[in-house]
């Protein structure tokens, strides 16, 4: 009875329920899982936006040129450092607004060699305190100098706050400064009385005051051929006079020493004579 009644009535819901029977075979799920796994792995690997990969690409592109780029960087660094070194050491003949230390004897100083601290040439307003200190140093050195002894240290120490003579009143900082400067003096004497203080002060001043150096025409620095010739002749004839001239002092000294050696050699050769088995020496 019941089955006969069910057979006779088929509703829309029954028909739609038939669609539930449309199911894939079990083998379908194997393929489904495999494809889904591949898609899931692909989804895990997220593609980065181009602006994030750009630096890595740039580095990778430049990586093949890292050796020439490194060499170029080293060359550029070397060039810059040499250039900085040359600008720090001023060329001879160029006027620089720096402090100058000179060991030339001053006419008004009866003691002979006194450190002269010249005031800055073309004194700018900024230079004035440094020049004042330099003048005070000069005055202190002139008053406290004895004989040919160079006394810039005492002047500076006196400025700082104490005197070198009464060592008991020196503060520790003044004492250390005096020791440093005395060491610098020794080094200066080793380097042929070249003023180390001058170089130091020039470097310091050039760093403090980046004043523009006046442009000097290189042609103006060249000497006339006649002057060169005259200096050579004079150096040959009168080496002492030539060396005394301040214009070509360095070159004439070098010339005079070379010529003196030549003359000594020639005179020595002329005084020596070889004759057979004899050696003659003339006195």
């Amino acid at each position: 009875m019941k089955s006969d009644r069910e057979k006779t009535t088929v509703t829309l819901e029954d028909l739609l329920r038939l669609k539930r029977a449309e199911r894939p075979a079990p083998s379908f799920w194997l393929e489904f899982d495999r494809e889904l796994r591949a898609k899931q792995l692909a989804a895990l690997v997220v593609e980065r936006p181009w602006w994030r990969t750009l630096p890595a690409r740039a580095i990778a592109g430049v990586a093949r040129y890292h050796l020439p780029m490194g060499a170029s960087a080293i060359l550029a660094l070397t060039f810059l450092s040499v250039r900085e070194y040359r600008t720090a050491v001023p060329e001879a003949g160029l006027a620089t607004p720096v402090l100058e230390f000179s060991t030339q004897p001053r006419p008004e100083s009866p003691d002979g060699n006194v450190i002269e601290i010249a005031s800055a040439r073309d004194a700018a307003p900024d230079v004035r305190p440094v020049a004042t200190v330099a003048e005070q140093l000069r005055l202190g050195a002139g008053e406290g100098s004895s004989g040919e002894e160079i006394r810039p240290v005492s002047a500076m120490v006196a400025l700082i706050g104490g005197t070198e003579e009464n060592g008991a009143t020196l503060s520790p900082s003044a004492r250390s400064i005096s020791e440093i400067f005395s060491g610098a003096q020794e080094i200066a004497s080793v380097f042929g009385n070249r003023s180390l203080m001058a170089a130091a002060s020039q470097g310091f001043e050039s760093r403090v005051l980046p004043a523009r150096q006046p442009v000097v025409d290189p042609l103006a620095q060249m000497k006339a051929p006649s002057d060169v010739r005259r200096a050579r002749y004079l150096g040959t004839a009168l080496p002492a006079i030539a060396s005394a001239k301040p214009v070509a002092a360095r070159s004439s000294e070098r010339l005079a020493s070379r010529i003196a050696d030549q003359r000594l050699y020639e005179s020595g050769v002329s005084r020596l004579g070889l004759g057979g088995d004899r050696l003659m020496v003339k006195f």
Partner: protein
Amino acid sequence: MNRVRETAYFPFAPRGRAGFIPSVMDASKVIGKTLVASPERAQEADADMEIVRLVQAGDVAAFDRLILKYRERVLGIVYHLTSNREDAADLTQDTFIKAFQSINRFGGQSSFFTWLYRIAVNTALSHLRKHRLRSFFSLEAMDTDQPVSREIIAALTDTSGAERDTYARELQEKLNEAMQKLSTKHRTVVTLFEIEGLSHQEIAEIMDSSVGTVRSRLHYAKQLLQAELQPYLRR
């Protein structure tokens, strides 16, 4: 779990599970809230939420459990919407991939299966919108060995053997043709309610519409289907 548990029986619902709606609020205002119609569904939602938390914590393998649990249902929804098994397989995979990619944004405002079904329906509808001019059937074989389908087919025909199978295939094609004549919204409502067995509230939540709209669409879709399948109905 902030779920609305104040439920009351709704006598006009066609099914018992679908007959629970919030007692204090209007049925049209339940969108976005998780409605737990039965204790079984509540337990299922809690279990899903635990797995979702594992996946959000970095346990990617836990998502496979969700796939195993819901793949047949999701495939069924997409297949009945598209009537194409190849497309259904691809769209089901896409659904799980989308869910996997955006599972960190899932905060538990709705149950996981509702959220997953919404992704599946939107994916299928988007596919149908793109390929509205290209539609052809690729049907799965109907399992006529199931008791329910066997009874229905036996009620429709007196023949047996090969003729019954031929009749079942013809009926299957007619069913799919009738379904494809419906609009996508009506097809979705019919699929979710009659085939997948979801409640009106769940369908409303999935389709982001009101329960009244779901009922209206369902009624209209049934009328159209009855007109199409009249030769196969027996009263």
